[in-house]
């Protein structure tokens, strides 16, 4: 098996072309001066990014309030999700790696559940449960609680349900490698518990905290299945993209996709750089 056959090499090459072909066409047709994202090539344009709408009847994505609002909605979801995932994930990681309590094995197992539940089902179950909660509270308090109805707040909760598992696993993996004698040394030198946490434990965890935060940000930004079930009147980016793709795509979607790809590429390389410290 040491000398790969020509056929095998050919297959590898074909595979990687297959892997990148869809991304390549998305990027290329963002610059095509045509009202449709399809061949033939009609010349290079930036109209779909920064155009005012005078050429194709639709403004470029960076000029279009629809796209700008939807990106803002995505950020309004992704930032709270990332912050909560890192904070709660750290506490969970501590429970998993350091604490002893009855039912810990059950807790460790249950924590993995959200990863095996299809996203659509996470979405509908949270939608149904929080509607019941809202109806109950409405009867009881005589006011409607908007946060429990479909909308950004519910999307945050829905995404958090499974992103928390991932954040916890990332942080727990790092905490497992921690040498506890470092903490003991700090205690022996007279540091208080909060000081040890701030100067010894958290700095050691920080690559995992940043990594978990970036992964959470990305997963939230790109989540579609769970979000679709919980969306209210202000859709995040994937929902808007889906709607536009069903209606019939214009190169505006290519343009926004390319921007997302570039942003994600940036985030991913940031993650790769921070996780290098792990090894």
């Amino acid at each position: 098996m040491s000398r790969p056959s020509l056929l095998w090499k050919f297959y590898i090459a074909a595979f990687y072309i297959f892997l990148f072909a869809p991304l390549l066409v998305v990027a290329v047709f963002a610059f095509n001066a045509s009202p449709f994202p399809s061949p033939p090539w009609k010349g290079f344009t930036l109209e779909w990014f920064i155009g005012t709408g005078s050429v194709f009847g639709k403004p470029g994505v960076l000029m279009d309030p629809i796209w700008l609002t939807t990106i803002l909605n995505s950020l309004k979801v992704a930032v709270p999700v990332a912050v909560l995932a890192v904070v709660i994930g750290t506490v969970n990681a501590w429970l998993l790696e350091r604490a002893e309590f009855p039912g810990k094995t059950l807790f460790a197992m249950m924590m993995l559940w959200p990863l095996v539940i299809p996203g659509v089902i996470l979405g509908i179950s949270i939608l149904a449960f929080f509607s019941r909660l809202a109806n109950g509270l409405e009867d009881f308090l005589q006011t409607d609680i908007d946060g429990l109805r479909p909308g950004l707040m519910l999307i945050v909760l829905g995404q958090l349900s499974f992103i928390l598992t991932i954040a916890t696993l990332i942080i727990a993996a790092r905490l497992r490698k921690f040498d506890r004698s470092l903490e003991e040394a700090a205690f022996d030198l007279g540091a208080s518990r909060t000081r040890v946490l701030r100067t010894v434990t958290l700095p050691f965890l920080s690559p995992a905290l940043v990594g978990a935060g970036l992964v959470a940000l990305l997963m939230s930004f790109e989540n579609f299945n769970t979000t679709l079930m919980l969306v209210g009147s202000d859709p995040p980016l994937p929902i808007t993209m889906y709607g536009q793709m069903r209606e019939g795509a214009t190169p505006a979607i290519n343009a926004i996709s390319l921007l997302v790809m570039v942003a994600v590429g940036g985030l991913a390389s940031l993650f790769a750089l921070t996780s290098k410290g792990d090894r």
Partner: protein
Amino acid sequence: MKPAQRLTLFLLMAPAILWLGLLIILPHVEILILSFSERVAPRVYQFGLGNYLEFFTEPLYWRTFARTAIMSILVTACTLVLAFPIALYIARVAQGRLKAMLLLMCLLPFWVSELVRTLGWMILLRETGVVSYVLQSIGLASQPVELLYNDGAVILGLVYGGLLFMIVPLANALESLEPSVVEAGFDLGGSRWTVLRRIVIPHAMPGIVAGSIIVFMLTVGNFATPVLLGGKNGLWFTEQIYAQFITRFNWPQGAAFGMLLLMLSSIIVWAGLRLSGQSLGTTLRQA
């Protein structure tokens, strides 16, 4: 344990309890209850099996369910076959920088949103798309060819979406295969095929199981790929759940569909784990 310690532990457990209780357990209890409630009058519900009976009596529903299950198994099998040579190459042949680069190049497309990847396939496959255009310009087709909105397109899109989740566990499993064992196989007169079948594949089994389970779960629960690439012919079960919940506002029916999908997904995962004698934790860690 001192009372103060006990309080600290409780405070630290509170977020996890709230998370698993309010976002996972209670919502699933809610859809379980909902799935057994029948509407007898406006805003009046009672316990009954009606939603499940509806599923078995309406051919569209159970056929879509069976179709989703069968196609997901097919997609998982295709993904495994396509990914195996790649994983084997990455794990056993490629060295140093090339190896790292090949693996990184597998990861890259999956950092990009599922919708962007699906958009790419739409641009490639549609009647006015790139493939059709190329076929016409090299003379293989005399008129536009519609490659979108059929089962082939759906399978292609789903296999594409699952590849990474197959390659990584496979490559991890193959990584630990001792070269001397493979050599011994050849020395004892085994052909390439025999060595692959008797040594390499059995050794890769944990990776094969882990990858297959993950790909199957992702495929069964997928929504955007079958709907966008299959169009009206997509007919995926998640779409039925969405239709009941959002379009028709028949939550009890949608909840019953949700429970059925959850059961399908859980049974396949459980069966896969049983057949291979592995636990969920180690399987997820493989990925």
